[in-house]
């Protein structure tokens, strides 16, 4: 029933007939969702609160597994195999599919250690390599110039916007293939928001990006593809330009024109 436009891109992740149920719930929070995630593009998930966009995003790196009793149905294909498989190596999976959260999540350590954390987890111990990669990631996160002289300060000393860029730098330091953004600017001021947005646009050369946002202008500004969700279902998926100018579904039309949400 949903309108899912065929796209002419290399597909990185493919969600197929995917449903999700939270522990203790009797109904599915995501119902039979299917959509492709194009490689090296930005895909935005939009929809009113409670529509399941964050639930879907959090399924893509199986962060739901941290809490017992959550259930996945269907398939999410990544390089030809289903990541919902029981034997999936979640630790490995998450190093390849990174995530940025609603609020900045600087770890209780220095700026340097924050960025180096993922690398250290992967067993990188050589200081020279670490130094280089940290600098590179901070540059990638558009933060390097601001912090290069105080890399060993506590990460708490950074402003909110800086911390969010630090989190992005931390995520890209491990060179993931996909980055998931969960409303990354909802806690930030407009100037920091613009900085993050331009950062996201610049990142897509290297990684595939999925972003959840409740800000439709933001989706329009930065995404190539948009999926509109409502009440746990995917209503429409297609090129961003098309979704925002000429959607097929009435619901989509009403939502983007601000009739509800």
């Amino acid at each position: 029933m949903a309108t899912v436009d065929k796209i002419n891109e290399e597909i990185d992740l493919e969600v197929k007939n995917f449903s999700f149920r939270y522990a203790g719930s009797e109904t599915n929070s995501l119902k039979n969702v299917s959509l492709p995630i194009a490689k090296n593009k930005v895909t935005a998930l939009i929809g009113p609160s409670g529509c399941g966009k964050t639930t879907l995003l959090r399924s893509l790196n199986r962060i739901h597994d941290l809490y017992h009793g959550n259930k996945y149905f269907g398939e999410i294909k990544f390089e030809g195999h289903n990541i919902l498989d029981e034997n999936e190596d979640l630790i490995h999976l998450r190093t390849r599919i990174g995530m940025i959260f609603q609020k900045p999540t600087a770890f209780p350590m220095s700026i340097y250690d924050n960025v180096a954390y993922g690398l250290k987890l992967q067993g990188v111990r050589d200081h020279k390599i670490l130094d280089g990669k940290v600098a590179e990631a901070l540059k990638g996160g558009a933060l390097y110039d601001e912090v290069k002289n105080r890399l060993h300060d506590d990460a708490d000393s950074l402003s909110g916007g800086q911390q969010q860029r630090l989190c992005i730098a931390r995520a890209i330091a491990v060179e993931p293939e996909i980055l998931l953004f969960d409303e990354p600017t909802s806690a930030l001021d407009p100037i920091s928001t613009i900085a993050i947005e331009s950062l996201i646009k610049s990142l897509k050369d290297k990684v595939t990006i999925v972003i959840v946002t409740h800000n439709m202008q933001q989706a329009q500004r930065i995404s190539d593809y948009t999926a509109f969700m409502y009440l746990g279902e995917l209503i429409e998926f297609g090129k961003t330009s098309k979704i925002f100018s000429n959607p097929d579904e009435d619901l989509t039309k009403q939502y983007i024109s601000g009739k509800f949400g």
Partner: protein
Amino acid sequence: MHNKHSIKEMFFEHLTRFSAILVLFFLSAIFIVLIIKAYPAIHHFGFSFITEQKWAPNFELFGGLPAIYGSFISTLIAMLFAVPVAIGIAIFLSEISPKSLKAPMGVSIELLAAIPSVVYGMWGLFYLAPLMRDVFGGNGLGLFTAGLILAIMILPFISAITRDALNTTPKILKESAYALGATQWDVIKDIMIPYAKAGIVGSVILALGRAFGETMAVTFVMGNSHQIPNSIFAPATSIPSTLANEFSEVDSELYLSSLYFLALILFIISFIIIAFAKFYFLKNKRSRKIKK
């Protein structure tokens, strides 16, 4: 009308102020009384009291070292056992345990913290000491047994506070570490423990203060020997158990004064330990807040 109120107002305010000053009064009074009472011994022995080993009341010779040593070593043994186990319990309660176990186990551990220490002492004398005797030989009384009882006594206290501190780690912070490919242990050691560190260290220091000043749990099993033992399984004594054993039975001024000297030393050390924990807690409260 107005006047009546302002008299009452003044009266009430001064009453509360007076009560607050009482706290200051009691604490200073404890210090002053201890110093006055300890003065004859301080004057007679000087600071060599702290380094002198011989405790021979029949010769009017009093050295505090064995008691001070016993207090330190038994507390050290207690911390060595209690800290890892308590943190283990806290990690279990906060991260590993199935949900259905969390609440009952958490509450029962908190309730165990409320059991009077004299009960721990009784258990120690009748159950733990024989067990220690069978396992390690000797007579089962001494620093090791006392340390073990102290460890068990402070266990609930440290675990409860550590669990609470670990639970304050924001979910989103843990998730973002998992999203980087961290294992559960990575998250615990790199995120949760550093995040809760101040709380954990604070609780550990407070527990240390408690173990150091504990009387009843150790007096039963210390062995009460004013000798510096050559083994942790040999009988020893501690400051509080020396006081409990000998305080009401001294028959000379110098003897009593020496016991007050020990009490003064105990009070000062506890004061330092607690003040340190307090300082740590305070420092912690100001920093470390996730930005919103």
